[in-house]
């Protein structure tokens, strides 16, 4: 499953990427395999989303969120 399968408020752990060339910017910002991640909410118009990772809030688009493979505890 990917990050987009979470409901707002749910937490999960990043497993990897659904693509062979993951966006390096997201990795630099701390989204790595093994990192805990929370989908906080969707923006008012449905996109982008607000995620919480390593203690801070980050906003990414759904297209990028769909690249992040996760597993629920």
């Amino acid at each position, binding site marked *: 499953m990917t990050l987009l399968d979470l409901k707002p408020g749910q937490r999960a752990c990043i497993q990897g990427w659904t693509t062979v060339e993951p966006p390096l910017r997201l*990795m630099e910002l701390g989204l790595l395999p093994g990192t805990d991640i929370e989908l906080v909410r969707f923006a008012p*118009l*449905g996109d982008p989303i607000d995620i919480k990772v390593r203690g*801070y809030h980050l*906003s990414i688009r759904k297209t990028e969120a769909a690249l992040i493979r996760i597993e629920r505890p």
Partner: protein
Amino acid sequence: MAESTSRPTRKIALIGNPNVGKTTVFNLLTGMRQKVGNYPGVTVERKVGRIVGDLDIDLIDLPGSYSLSPKSLDERIAYDVLIGHLPGETAPDLAVCVVDASNLERNLYLVTQVIDVGLPVIVALNMTDAAEEAGLSIDVKALEESLGVPVIPMVASRNDGIGKLKYRMRQEELPEPAERKWELMPVVAEVIPDLEEELKSHLPEKSRFIEALQCLTSDTMLESWLTRAPRFHARVLAVRERLEERKAPYRQAEIMGRYNWLSPLVARVAIKQKDPNQQTVSDRIDAVLTHRIFGPLLFGLVLLLIFQAVFTWATPVMDGIEAGVVGLGDLVRSGMPPSMFTDLLVDGVITGVGNVVVFLPQILLLFFFLGLMEDTGYMARSAFIMDRVMHRVGLSGGSVVPMLSSFACAIPGIMAARTLANPRDRLITIMVAPLMSCSARLPVYTLFIAAFLPTGAVLGIFTFQGIAMFSMYLLGTVMAFIAAFVLRRFVFKGESSFFAMELPPYRMPRFRQIIWRMIDRSKAFVVRAGKIIFGMSVLLWVLATFPRSNTPDEMIAERATIDLQIDTRADSLQAAGMTASNALIEAQVAMNGAIRTLDARESAYQIERSVIGRMGHAIEPIMRPLGFDWKISAGIISAFAAREVIISALATLYSVGDIDDDSPLLREKLKADRYADGSPVYTPLVAVSLLVFFVLALQCMSTLAIARRETNSWKWPAVMWLYMTGLAWLFSFVIYQGGKALGLG
């Protein structure tokens, strides 16, 4: 040996993630001794402050960056400055990394990169109050030991710890550069020494590792070595190929290596005393401000309120300044003999200065509100709320800040577009930013809305004029979106852009910082725009005064007739028993109307034949379908220097030749102006047509100049001018002709 006589100077670079209070630290350290320029060849702002003392320090404020692996121009510059790559810019002696204590892991990522550059590093551990609030207790000593560099805890917003940082920066002995402690995955680590070897004759030993690593992962970094060290270039390509064959994820290796080292380190030094998943105050505020329904509603309300406030709160101050300028002009006139020099002083110089100062209250207010949004963290939320819309027209939420900044002025807006990593996004943002109504348009809006639109109130607190003002801003914004969509669709086709934006915690606004920034930005506006406006005011007076033409015979004859009539009348009054002087005055008063009409006709005759009048006449045929006469056309031409110049242009056009002492305000003069057939020049419809023209037309040399610099060619500014002026003409044409057809003329 000139150097030995001057005090020793140390060069220090200040670096950090965005939103960590780096600018606050910079301002506190350097005070008002700041110099802003550009890096040679590129357009990234170079901000240097000086700390004076036994040892002078030049502090370079580097652009906020998450990483030194360049993904945007800003990050490229940050890296190049630190490593000393830029021509004419030596590497700094020390780097101060400002770090957000409540967000250690991501912030320390950058710190480990800066350490790898090989410079001595000091970490300024900022926002320790926020960390405490979040339930984090940080073991500073352990952090220092793990990183191998000094760490100074501080709360810059409360001026805590700045003295200690300054002291450390001044200490004669610099801290030792730290060793690299993190490790690359073996398959990548083993190829690096070979690459370092190739850089031997080009770089000092300490910076070879990071350069080799950067080039391995980044094409833009590698490109710069193609001519400088072709062997190194070829070697990197070969290594990449080998790693790809072995399916080694070498592009991610650096990031994983650094975080693998950092995560346990941070877990050790920052002890969580609260459940990290507990909702913070900021989270609860976000639940309302980015709520599905309340979020956009509140955002719209915030914008409407800002513009309403900017329009109404500033008015009393502006009226005061206007009255002061008129009073000063009268004072000068009464104290000096009537001459062309007095005219120049009053109509050119004093009016010119007044035209700059009078709009300062509005500009200050607008900058204040933008600063407030930035400082509280609401600016990022506005991007979060708006991204879907921006994305649809081919931009990203990241374009919201450059575009909102363009409400103040397109120049900082266009420059702010540098933060966009995607070059296509950046170019589109630059191309449409000037459509956002800048503060220079504000005076034009103000004058014409106040003069020609009704004052009635709607819904209690909103007035017609406030709503009209809002509509101007709305029109510009909507057109910017449409233009972006068209550009993305037909000019810059291709993959959509990438978006990742931090949502910093909300904080109480720090008014000192906001006001500091407000004054800073307004100063730039007054200096840059003010010079042009002032210069243009004087130049325009000259253009409107010269060449002098001879008064036509029929007017001379008319004047003679009037003089004769006065004489005759005075004679007959004197015969009726009045004193000679009283009789003359009485006779002149009786003929006052005729004298004034003739005076006005004479000055109109003069202006029409002046340079500016001729220019206005020349383009009048093109402008007539929009409802503009030659005076408005002349004003539009002169407004190219800067939009607000049209005000001083019209002021000059209408006050030259005016002999009345109690000269009414410009808006009264505009209202009174008539065509030869007696119909008013300015109807509300003409005012609307002109307003719309100003919303859409690109009449600003400075914008073209900055666009030329940012895009590095005249092509884009030319396209920009053509499409915007074309749009302006088209819209004004439709509005004026449509309005007339509907009987609104």
